[in-house]
């Protein structure tokens, strides 16, 4: 190996822990949830109030439940049930969707952004 090879290899290995630190920052508990149908925002709800929501999509009604600061799909008129299998979501940035029914939910943090990258 040439000197350049060794320097590059060491740099790459040394940089790895920092890459983990940067991209694996701990998530914070979310405060609100955004429910989208396709590209349009249907509702934005606080997670601190327990409730059940029904959202109409192209295939039918998707049902959601908010409880103890968490949200989940309880029913959706699709075959994969990916959104339901995702279970409870509670951290800011968490996301799941029922793509066939075009309904997606994303948890938002207290601020507009949970991290800024330049």
């Amino acid at each position, binding site marked *: 190996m040439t000197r*350049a090879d060794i320097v590059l290899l060491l740099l790459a290995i040394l940089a790895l822990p920092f890459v983990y630190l940067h991209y*694996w920052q701990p998530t914070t508990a979310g405060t609100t949830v955004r429910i989208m149908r396709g590209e349009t925002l249907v509702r934005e709800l606080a997670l601190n109030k327990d409730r059940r929501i029904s959202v109409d999509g192209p295939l039918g009604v998707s049902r959601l439940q908010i409880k103890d600061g968490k949200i989940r799909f309880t029913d959706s008129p699709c075959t994969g049930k990916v959104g339901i299998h995702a279970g409870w979501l509670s951290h800011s940035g968490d996301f799941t969707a029922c793509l066939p029914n075009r309904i997606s939910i994303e948890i938002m943090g207290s601020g507009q952004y949970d991290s800024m990258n330049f």
Partner: protein
Amino acid sequence: MKITLRSTPEDSRIAWFTALAVTIHVLESSLPSPIPGLKPGLANIITITVLCQFGWRTAAWVSLLRVLVGSLVLGTFLSPTFMLSLSGAVTSVLILWGGTKLPGRGFGPVGYSLLASIAHISAQFTCAYLLFIPHPGLWRLFPVLLTFAVALGMINGIISRSLLTHISYREAE
């Protein structure tokens, strides 16, 4: 009317190595992968070997033709898989060009292979994020795949180095 196409020795050299790289690319695509997006990138061994033996120009041809022909064989031409492949190949070819400009003894196969694998995975993540999955959660996978890229880049570089010391290349008449 008779059309004659004259091919230079460089053309046939590019064709031979592209055929070899495409074969590896196609075989590799049938391997199961534990994590989506994780591939050993064995076809890059050919790119790196060609780069060290014949220079950047030939390596760039082999690398880009491999992505094009590989996608035609696999039926993924212009699909997301192809776009990810192409973005990785173009970026790593550009980065390798920069690598060849290093003064002194420069990089050997291991260094080039590392540069290529890191460029590949970074470009593919950027491409996937911009075109297909514009969700910040995608980047949570990045450190894991980067770790594999460093490890596999090093291994492929070592394989390429042993190829270079064990094969003597003879130009066909």
